[in-house]
């Protein structure tokens, strides 16, 4: 009997995504994606916007950017800055969790 469960998929790490598809997947406009690249929040391979290809991890960055931009009514520059800080917070949280897991400073 066929199962009615659908499989949750891992990110396709090797997939490369062009600008238009990233805009479509994230809900951003192409101009907003370009602005995020200019402000350093996204780093595509390729020299011109037509040639740009993005990694799969860019989807979650771009989606977070759309959410922040929408929910706080922020301009792309502020969003890019916020993303950099959030990235730093996540990095520090991961380090803290690793230290706590080793039992040095129990949670």
């Amino acid at each position, binding site marked *: 009997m066929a199962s009615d*469960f659908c499989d*949750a998929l891992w990110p396709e790490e090797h997939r490369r995504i062009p600008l238009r598809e990233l805009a*479509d997947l994230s*809900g951003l406009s192409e101009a907003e994606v370009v602005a995020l690249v200019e402000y350093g929040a996204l780093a595509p391979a390729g020299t011109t916007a037509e040639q740009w290809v993005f990694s799969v991890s860019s989807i979650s960055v771009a*989606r977070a950017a759309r959410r922040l931009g929408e*929910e*706080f*009514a922020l301009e792309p520059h502020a969003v890019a800055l916020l993303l950099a800080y959030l990235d730093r917070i996540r990095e520090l949280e991961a380090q803290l969790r690793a230290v706590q*897991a080793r*039992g040095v400073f129990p949670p």
Partner: protein
Amino acid sequence: MKFKDYYAILGVYRNASADDIKKRYRILARKYHPDVSKEPDAEKRFKEVAEAYATLKDAEKRAAYDQLGARRPGEDFRPPPEWSTQFGDGHAAFDEMDFADLFAGLAGRAGHGRRSGQRGPAAAMRGQDYEVTVPITLEDAHHGTEVSLDLSTTEFDGRGAPRRVGKRIKARIPKGPTDGQVLRLPGQGGKGINGGPDGDVYLNIVLRPHRLYRVSGRDLFLDLPLAPWEAALGAAVEVPTLAGPVNLKVPPGTRAGRQLRLAGRGLPKPEGGAGDLHAVVQIVLPSTLTEREKALYGELAAASTFDPRQHFG
């Protein structure tokens, strides 16, 4: 349908400029957004202000909202009859909508949003994506699991009329996700419009705290209590792992804090293999000692030349 006073929710006059509305929204978003707010009813208030702003920030939607005129919040009303031709077949279409849907629908019909293919009145648009937080246990992450998710989605009929649809999705989570892992359910999000593809559902995996294990990436850490004599003399002890108990050899002279590694006993990796389980040694004493135990400790104290504080100088 109950009327909502979007201007009052944002605290602006009906003739406020777009800049004033944005400024006021920013202040309220900072105050009530659940990510940054400490207000007790933050999530509810944020939803209200976000709904109001979604309509008033868009000139077309704001003009449509203004057509309704000023009314009392909560007042029963029916949208103008001519709107019904835009939202489906007759007044019945309004009964399935909530207030926000009236204006959300304007974006879909105008060809805004996420296009796929050509723009225009009948432009194909990709369905909405959804993000869902899915808390799972470490056991679930180790073995894989199945979850049921309830989503409330907005769908548009052939004439662009929006309606809320409850949707239950049953998803199979593969083994091996870590905390913060994002998995994707392709095509399980909102329905595509005018032949556009259906949206996806993104699952944000959160690992629930475990009573025994702490997690770092795919490595697990477990406190391993040992009696002083087990640590001093060495012992073979049974250690719980997510795949069942295993025997661990504790070498003689094991100190507190030492980590004994059980390779491949952590969380599995999708590409094969697994993280490690680290048993962190703790040396513990019984809460009360029997007379016999006291005597033996006394004998040991008299016989030993060990000075644990020698480095104090």
